[in-house]
């Protein structure tokens, strides 16, 4: 790929996509696929489903590039995070997530064989508890902790003000601490 393409800003690429330039689309997809996949995976906990969501989101953009309106959206990633989140929520509504049996998370009284097992169990518990959080609290956590977005960016993605976002994160953490008492 020519270096010139890789150097282009997202906004420039989007303008080119609106003119039907496939190469600009390719650069944009290669640049951002992983980050949007990460977010989709957090919601769906399934690789194939997360990949489908990312593909759908990008194809929607390609098919109808006029969806991107630079005068209304300051940053491509903020806007696209919103699209991916909405697609994930729609997907979850259509298909209820598989509820893993409680037996997977029952705390074991015996000492675990090694550190790896403990970590694995903690991970399972944290995933289960995050999945049980209200939608908005979960989105706030995913955006801030996984994607490394600043609170301000996450607030923009969610369409709330900074204070509301901070409150969502605080409530989510309080709930998690309460529910994971035994594991923290």
């Amino acid at each position, binding site marked *: 790929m020519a270096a010139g393409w890789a150097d282009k800003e997202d906004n420039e690429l989007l303008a080119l996509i609106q003119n*039907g330039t*496939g190469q600009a*689309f*390719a650069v944009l*997809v*290669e640049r951002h*696929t*992983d980050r949007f*996949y*990460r977010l989709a*995976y*957090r919601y769906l906990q399934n*690789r194939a489903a*997360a*990949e489908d969501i*990312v*593909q759908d989101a*990008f*194809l929607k953009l*390609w*098919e*109808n*590039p*006029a969806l991107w309106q630079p005068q209304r959206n300051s940053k491509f990633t903020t806007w696209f995070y919103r699209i991916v989140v909405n697609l994930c929520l729609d997907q979850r509504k259509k298909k209820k997530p598989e509820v893993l049996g409680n037996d997977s998370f029952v705390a074991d009284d015996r000492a675990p064989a090694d550190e790896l097992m403990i970590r694995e169990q*903690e*991970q399972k518990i*944290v*995933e289960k508890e995050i999945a049980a959080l209200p939608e908005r609290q979960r989105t706030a*956590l995913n955006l801030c*902790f*996984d994607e490394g977005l600043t609170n301000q960016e996450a607030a923009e993605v969610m369409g709330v003000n900074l204070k509301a976002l901070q409150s969502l994160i605080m409530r989510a*953490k309080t709930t*998690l*601490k309460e529910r*994971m008492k035994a594991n*923290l």
Partner: protein
Amino acid sequence: MSDNRDEKLETLLRSRRLEPASADLAQRIILKAGQIPQTRTPPFWQSVRELFGEFHLPKPAYVLASALVLGIVIGLSAPQETTLAVDDSSVSVQGFLTADEALL
């Protein structure tokens, strides 16, 4: 104690397991896009929104304009009976006056 719990929770949140995406995901998306034609014309509502966007009128102006249009429509669609009724009354008043004059 509480600080330790906070710290541990933060660590857990930042080290969540992630199944990596297929290595060819981006390529698959690009290939698939190549088979899909782009929509050149913006959707109807988007065009309408853009059209309104061109005017940059404040909201009260839209309200005023809508009220004016509504007023005109109601005005034009008012039944004609009222005017007829007025005519009838004027005729009868005239008749009464004429009859009165005749008596004199």
